[in-house]
């Protein structure tokens, strides 16, 4: 993903370990907003 961003001219970096490493380091998290959740396809 970061590579694709770079290819499009964005100055992109990868966060090592992602959200798991962020959480482990005690950095602040927030719940995913419902507006983002509804973007997913569902069959309900």
């Amino acid at each position, binding site marked *: *993903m*970061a590579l694709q961003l770079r290819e499009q001219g964005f100055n992109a*970096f990868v966060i090592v370990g992602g959200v798991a490493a962020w959480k482990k*380091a005690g950095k602040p998290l927030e*719940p995913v907003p419902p507006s983002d959740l509804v973007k997913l396809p*569902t069959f*309900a």
Partner: protein
Amino acid sequence: MNNLFSLIAHHEYVLIFAVVLSEAIGLPVPAALALVAGGAAAAGGTLSLPRALATAVTAMLIGDTLLFILGRYMGWSLLGLLCRLSVNPESCVLRSAESFYKRGKTTLLIAKFIPGVNTMAPPLAGSMRMPAQQFLRLDLAGASLYILAYGGLGFLFRDFLAALTRGFQAASHVFGEVLFVAAIAYIFYRFFLYNKNKVYRVVPRVQVEELARKLESDEKEKVMILDVRSHGYYDAKAERIKGSLRIEPNNLSEELKSLPKDKDIYVYCT
């Protein structure tokens, strides 16, 4: 192959059931090969074709339903766990989710034929809240297609397969050739891994502490954090890095239009 024929002939339905169930729950076993062997055994009269097919379909439905239920209640944590067992954990869920984006519920009809997607489709359907009856109907159809395709192959080409296995026995040098092909395949695999790692090397990586420092400094206005996980959002209780924005990896070309080029963009996908 010959050993598998022999095993199928001796342990019959139990082996078909065990192998198909194992593949359905994500274990790396050759269910397709077992189905071909089962079909050939049925053509030879060793097995009853309807019973063999029913055994395989039942095993697949049990495995798929188990993952469907687990997907419903465990969400992306199960998907993450299953993907850690796959060759490419990062693309594993994305690939399966993309299939659902493109084909919707009909993914379940063809999922069994697509490596990687086959195991992920039932838990994804569960996490996407597909009604159980609809899942069972589609999964039954998909499982039947898969089992009929491979079982039918063995049934129809029994003589050819038997000749093939006799040929393998007679020509011992084939073993050497197989080893040679395997060695070549391994070299290509290592080359693929090397190229993959080379790609990763060209993308700068930052540690959590380094990013946190930037966010606490004057540079924070230049920082944008993007959450590009896909599977993380299958769980309503999912959390993300505070202040990050989500972009949908399956819709990247559209999402890129809204991103600023004057900021440093930090992405995470796990």
